[in-house]
């Protein structure tokens, strides 16, 4: 299948604009992706023509809104290989999905002293702080996998880390800093053997790779809409239905109940149990449209394009003097997110000079401060790619880095 990146770019109006007098070179898709007209049009049409609240109205608009909202759920379920749309819970973002699980599983498992939760040093703060707080609340112990010098998950102490004491393992599927894609098969197998549940933070993988929850080995995954061509304000928790059915609610209120009396409440089945209050309806429909767009191009083709771009970028960056790449230096087992340092120049200054040239990258600790600490730097510069990234944009990045070296040389 041939992938026509120039054709794809025409669907994204933002590429028509300039930044600081230069054509926009957007290399920050791991932060948030740009949106195609196909998504924007669907959201606007919904607001203009079909708007009504979901799951409670008998009128036509309410019915049409509910159909669109549930239709989006079904397409998203299909996109990730879920057994049923009921396994897809809409949340605000990945962070809310992970907090939901930390609270609900903590209660369901009656977590306490002697129990262990295992994460890794590679986590985004969203898959780290909720577990720290859970352990503080319950007295359970938090443990973690380290990172190897080449930016891989260090599984050498797997059998010690994941043991009969382990109740939950929660890991990032693809690192938002290093780009590493974690092959979790060994960890999933070990977790199963000891009776621990496995959650994966798929915020950076679902947008970029073909992913099938039926063969992934996880019990729960989280991802977010705005990194996969959808809007902000909508995320997804996927969980095995038999597991979701046992989990107590997180947020409480309207829409998540079965029956309410002044003396007590019984709760709806999943996914409604976990969707208290009016949900982000338009955003969910927008995410459904994003999934249609991605499916139309094919996730395998998108992944292949990003592999090609990443290979090109790794070559280009390693040929710039003074640039050090953090994470895997070849495309094997990594995605299109590349973090690097420029010798003697702070990432803020790198980012500022690149911005003056229209090149938008992320700088800082990327909400994953322990990853920066692991490599003994306070911050990194990160370029991240997507289906619309071109080799010409990588060339612009490399030219920008030459300019950085001139200013700070």
């Amino acid at each position: 299948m041939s992938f026509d990146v120039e054709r794809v770019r025409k669907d994204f109006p933002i590429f028509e604009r300039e930044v600081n007098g230069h054509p926009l070179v957007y290399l920050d898709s791991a932060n948030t992706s740009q949106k195609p007209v196909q998504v924007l049009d669907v959201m606007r049409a919904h607001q203009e023509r079909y708007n009504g609240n979901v799951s409670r109205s008998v009128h036509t608009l309410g019915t049409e809104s509910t159909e669109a909202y549930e239709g989006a759920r079904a397409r998203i379920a299909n996109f990730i290989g879920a057994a049923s749309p009921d396994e897809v819970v809409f949340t605000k973002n990945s962070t809310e999905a992970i907090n939901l699980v930390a609270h609900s599983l903590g209660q369901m498992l009656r977590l306490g002293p002697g129990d262990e939760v295992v994460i890794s040093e590679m986590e985004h703060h969203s898959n780290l702080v909720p577990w720290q707080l859970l352990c503080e609340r319950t007295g359970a112990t938090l443990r973690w996998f380290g990172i190897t010098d080449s930016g891989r998950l260090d599984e050498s102490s797997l059998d010690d880390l994941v043991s009969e004491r382990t109740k939950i393992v929660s890991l990032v599927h693809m690192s938002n800093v290093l780009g590493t894609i974690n092959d979790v098969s060994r960890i999933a197998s070990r977790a199963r053997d000891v009776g621990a549940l496995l959650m994966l933070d798929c915020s950076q993988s679902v947008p970029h790779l073909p992913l099938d929850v039926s063969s992934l080995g996880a019990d729960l995954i989280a991802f977010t809409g705005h990194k996969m061509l959808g809007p902000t304000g909508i995320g997804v928790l996927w969980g095995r239905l038999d597991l979701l059915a046992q989990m107590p609610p997180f947020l409480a209120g309207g829409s998540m109940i079965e029956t309410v009396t002044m003396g007590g409440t019984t709760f709806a089945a999943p996914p409604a149990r976990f969707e208290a209050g009016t949900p982000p309806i338009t955003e969910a429909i927008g995410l459904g449209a994003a999934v249609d767009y991605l499916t139309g191009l094919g996730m395998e083709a998108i992944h292949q394009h990003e592999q090609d771009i990443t290979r090109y970028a790794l070559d280009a960056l390693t040929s710039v003097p003074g640039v050090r790449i953090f994470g895997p230096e070849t495309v094997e087992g990594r995605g299109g997110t590349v973090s690097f340092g420029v010798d003697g120049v702070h990432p803020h200054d790198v980012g500022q000079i690149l911005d003056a040239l229209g090149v938008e990258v992320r700088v800082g600790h990327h909400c994953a401060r322990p990853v920066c600490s692991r490599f003994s730097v306070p911050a990194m510069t990160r370029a991240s790619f997507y289906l619309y990234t071109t080799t010409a944009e990588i060339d612009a990045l490399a030219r920008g880095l030459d300019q950085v070296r001139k200013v700070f040389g």
Partner: protein
Amino acid sequence: MMLDGLYQEIILDHYKNPHGRGLRDPYDGEAHHVNPTCGDEITVRVSHDLNEISYDGVGCSISQASASVLHELVQGKDAAAASEIHHAFVELMQSRGQVEADEEILGDGIAFAGVAKFPARVKCALLPWMAFKDAAARAGVEVGVSPEVKA
């Protein structure tokens, strides 16, 4: 290029050759500040008479040059003069480029006028000044006002 206003030669000079860098003893007050969005950090130590100001940290050219300028401007001043300088620098940084900097008071600090036009970088320039203010307070010296930093 628009960056000329941001990366003035004076700023780059202070970044490459910082004045007074390194933590020294004795001191009467110390403060450690971080910029949580970017991870920049600075520790400032001051003596009660402001005759000794020392600092160390990690950060971008703007935050590190700003610490160097602070050291150059404020060390050895009395509390009233330090307050005046502190106030003038904070006002300049919050001006969005609308305030004329007074070189008599701010010396090399006027080079930061351009930084005020980059809202994302104002916090970088202010980081050492806010740490200095807290360190001074712990040494018993009240310096300047406590503005809310918007960026």
